[in-house]
């Protein structure tokens, strides 16, 4: 990093007012104004009714399904994502570049297309649905289907957080541990895992947050039965279609609070994780 000379106090480059103006205008009008309107609307409802709405059995059930499925999807991605990151960071094999590119498919593929594809795969007569049915497992129109859709759309987060950290681990520390007599499992537990743990947590937190808000992919596969396979985002949508704006505002605000809390948590985790990497240099 070049150190800027101490005598430079004036802004040298032009365009600050214009750039800042455009930035604040866009953020204010496009992002903050709507979110503010949403919060105002739910303040309008009054505390008692707000509590009534979010503690109604159907809302509670929707949030429970959403959280549990998001948790399941995040756990799957923690394991599979770690495996993918490990394989991409540490091994060379034919097709590695293609595998690396494939990891981004869930981000690039529109959620509606992903939902359509997953619903078809897991349908009663689908490629996966038919063999699973023989085993007595039904994925489509159940919470398992929701978990599958969430796991698909949030797949890249853990990989992309963990992969660069794994690539950065110096062979010397592993070698040192080895010469001291540690077996591989011990080296992984005591040397490698602590280094990637913050990145893994940050990836999980991003994936969980995204899973909570996922909509497009889920509605194709979930069946959307109230109190069984109905997610919070869909319930918001249904309340809107019923012109029940108070309920829609309350549920959306609760989802917003969850998302912002997770955003803060992720930022803290990333700061921790950057410190860790900084210390390793």
């Amino acid at each position, binding site marked *: 990093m070049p150190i800027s000379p101490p005598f430079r106090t004036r802004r040298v480059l032009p365009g600050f007012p214009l750039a800042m103006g455009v930035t604040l205008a866009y953020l204010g009008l496009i992002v903050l104004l709507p979110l503010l309107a*949403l919060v105002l609307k739910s303040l309008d409802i009054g505390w008692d009714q707000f509590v009534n709405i979010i503690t109604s059995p159907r809302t509670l059930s929707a949030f429970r399904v959403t959280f549990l499925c998001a948790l399941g999807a995040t756990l799957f991605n923690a394991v599979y994502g770690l495996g993918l990151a490990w394989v991409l960071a540490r091994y060379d094999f034919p097709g590695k570049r293609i595998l690396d590119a494939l990891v981004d498919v869930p981000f690039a593929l529109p959620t509606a297309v992903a939902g359509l594809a997953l619903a078809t795969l897991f349908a009663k007569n689908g490629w996966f649905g038919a063999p699973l049915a023989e085993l007595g497992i039904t994925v489509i129109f159940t919470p398992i289907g929701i978990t599958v859709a969430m796991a698909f759309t949030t797949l890249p987060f853990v990989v992309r957080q963990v992969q660069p950290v794994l690539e950065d681990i110096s062979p010397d520390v592993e070698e040192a541990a080895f010469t001291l007599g540690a077996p591989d499992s011990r080296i992984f537990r005591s040397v490698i895992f602590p280094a990637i743990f913050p990145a893994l947590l940050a990836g999980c937190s991003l994936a969980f947050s995204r899973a909570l808000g996922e909509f497009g992919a889920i509605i194709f596969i979930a069946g959307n039965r109230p109190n069984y396979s109905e997610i919070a985002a869909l319930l918001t949508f249904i309340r809107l279609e019923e012109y029940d704006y108070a309920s829609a505002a309350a549920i959306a605000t609760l989802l917003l609070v969850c998302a912002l809390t997770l955003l803060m948590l992720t930022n803290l985790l990333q700061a921790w994780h950057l410190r860790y990497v900084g210390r390793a240099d």
Partner: protein
Amino acid sequence: MDFKRIKPYRTPAIHRVGDRPATRALLIGGVLLTTFFVLIAPLSVIFIEAFSAGMAVYAQNLKDGATQHALWLTVLTAIVVVPINIAFGIAAAWAVTKFNFRGKNLLITLIEIPFSVSPIIAGVALLFVYGAQGLFGPALDAADVKIMFALPAIFLASLFVTAPFVARELIPLMQVQGSDDEEAALSLGASGFRMFISVTLPNVKWALVYGAILCNARVMGEFGAVSVVSGNIRGVTNTLPLHIELLYHDYNAVGAFAAATLLASLAVVTIIVRAVVERFDEGRAEVKKRMRPGGH
């Protein structure tokens, strides 16, 4: 300036965890097998189903009037939204990376908000600004301006969900590059505009292209936010992702898959561009090296 590192001499048999052939084969095999089920199968099923009734039916499905209209609406939305997003991304990156001001971290967090907020929230929130029962609803109604359940709402929802796309590609790169090039141009007598066109833009062109392509993919594929605000009016405010859902619920699965191939191809192109940019763009490699861990 970094000093060029000289690789130290290493004994060839350095020990690394997981390098035993059995472990290696097990991990690579397990990951590839899972990837086949989790990523390759969903991508393939789209194309296989779309062509399952033959090429002629596929072409006919794409020629369908409602599908054509949905495609046009999706392209139009991208034409409107992507340039605005590029302008915002450049402005935000310029303000954040070239100047110091109080609240900079807060500003960066605000730019990132649309990433963590559900698209459904974006749609509902817009409704409470421009809808009949929203903040500006009565005023808009009186002025006979229609925003909700019309094109402007689709544009606004797309602008919301894609807000960070260009900015987050530019910010780390411009942070690494610093302002020395721009200051040199100014000291040689270039105007601010000239400096921007001849120095800044060429420096960030790959990141800009990449950000714009990601933004485009998201705009064309956005479902949740648009489905709340568009009103889903067939042949009027139905974008391609909404049209796919409509066809699917009409039990026209082959038609839905035919429309889906357009968006899936866009996704494949986006990923290929990403791979190419990663490989050839030195700026991106530099960012990756210095800003680890990057990612999403």
